[in-house]
């Protein structure tokens, strides 16, 4: 049983519009049987934070192509992308590079 973890989420480049224009979110993920990974985080964001048009943020299991993901200021491609296991106090940033956000 993994303990609940507190993480910091940040949305930029227009992605914040889908979250009522709020750029920074401090959230606590509830405890669950297995450790949290990014894939589960995306599901959690979709259910708990996203305010509108979920298809403009998540597509399939992953984020919409064109949205950059940084884990603790490093490219998520270096961290294992969806399989990265979240640690307490991690900083996850989503930046849209798409035209118009």
């Amino acid at each position, binding site marked *: 049983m993994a303990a609940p973890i507190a993480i910091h989420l940040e949305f930029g480049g227009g992605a914040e519009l889908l979250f009522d224009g709020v750029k920074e979110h401090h959230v606590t993920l509830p405890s669950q049987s297995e450790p949290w990974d990014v894939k589960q985080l995306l599901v959690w964001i979709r259910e708990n934070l996203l305010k*509108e048009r979920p298809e403009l943020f998540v597509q399939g299991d992953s984020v919409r192509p064109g949205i950059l993901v940084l884990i603790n200021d*490093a490219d998520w491609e270096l961290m*294992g992308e969806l399989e990265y296991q979240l640690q307490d106090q991690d900083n996850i940033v989503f930046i849209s590079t798409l*035209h*118009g956000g």
Partner: protein
Amino acid sequence: MCQVDEEYNSPLEHKSLPAVSKKCMKCKEGTAVLIIRVGDAFCRSCFKEYFIHKFRAMLGKNRVIFPGEKVLLAVSGGPASSCMLAQVQEGLSRDAPKKLRFMPGIIYIDEGGVCGQNAEEREKAVVQLESIFRMTGFPYHIVPLEQVFTLPESVLEPVYSREQPGSSYKAAVDQHIRTEVTRGHGEPAVEETQDAVGRLSLQASTYKPEHKLALEGLFSSLKTLTAKQDMLQILRHHLILHTARINGYSKVMIGDSCTRLAIKLLTNISLGRGAALAADTAFSDSRYGDVVMVRPMRDYSSKEIGFYNRLFEVQSVFIPGLDTKTADKASIQRLTESFVVKLQADFPSTVSTVYRTSEKLHTACPPQSSTTEAAAKCLLCLCALDTKAGKLQH
């Protein structure tokens, strides 16, 4: 053929995941922070060096911006153009031998009137941008899109009369060094005050209510988002061009990234602008004659720019556009973007392949060739008309 899916599925799904905390491929010491191309991981400091070098190399290789020339930077507030502004600032802050030697100014076109923003939202965006522009110390021009109705018709005619300052880059450099020596430090101050005056007059200019209505009427008469986006781009260029002309800028820098250019290239083919591809996507575009548009950011992908802005705190301002929060199929531009970006996610060389193709395109006849041809230009985009080619086929 039916087995395509089975054959390609497995390598796509089992992408090998690189080990966490990989080392930088350049210095072999620093911890990598991003992957630029497949397998090329860079650490923070090597990435910064690489990024800055690329900007200078782009200008150095093309040799179209002469020392002492006035260059207008078209900044929309978005990541790519904000990053371009940061790169110019960086280049001008260097010590003598490595210093960029042109004189920049900034233009922002306030398009809020067609993008559904109210007066307060527009004001707020302008205030944010002004604080960024002020910190650069460069003269800046904030022009509402409504002013497009005050433009003289002459903006739609290419101008070739004015002599280029020195036909070759080398001659221009020599001349610059000579004038630097002779004039000492007195003259630049005069130019600065002239700029300040220009800035004041332009800042004071706002838009008239009837022009606001005219603009709204124009855009509501366009039925599709595709046409609106296309029209906005044309009007924006006219305003930038006019501002450059009346303020004596001979070059305009546009912050198109290679991702953006790849999307533009495919969009323009779909829009029937195939004949104008070279002019629309090349490094330098001289269709307007006296004012040349250059695209110094065309070697950076949107990912590189996004990371640079994040890691080195380049401020950008998000301003909703026509296509904000629209679905993938809302317009041809939007659909092409989604097509390219999605393909890029699975095949990381997509953008560079499309972009390299655009590099190989050239205009068949240089625009300066003859005066009689001037009649055969498109009234809106000033590219050579290709309507005859269609008639011949019939």
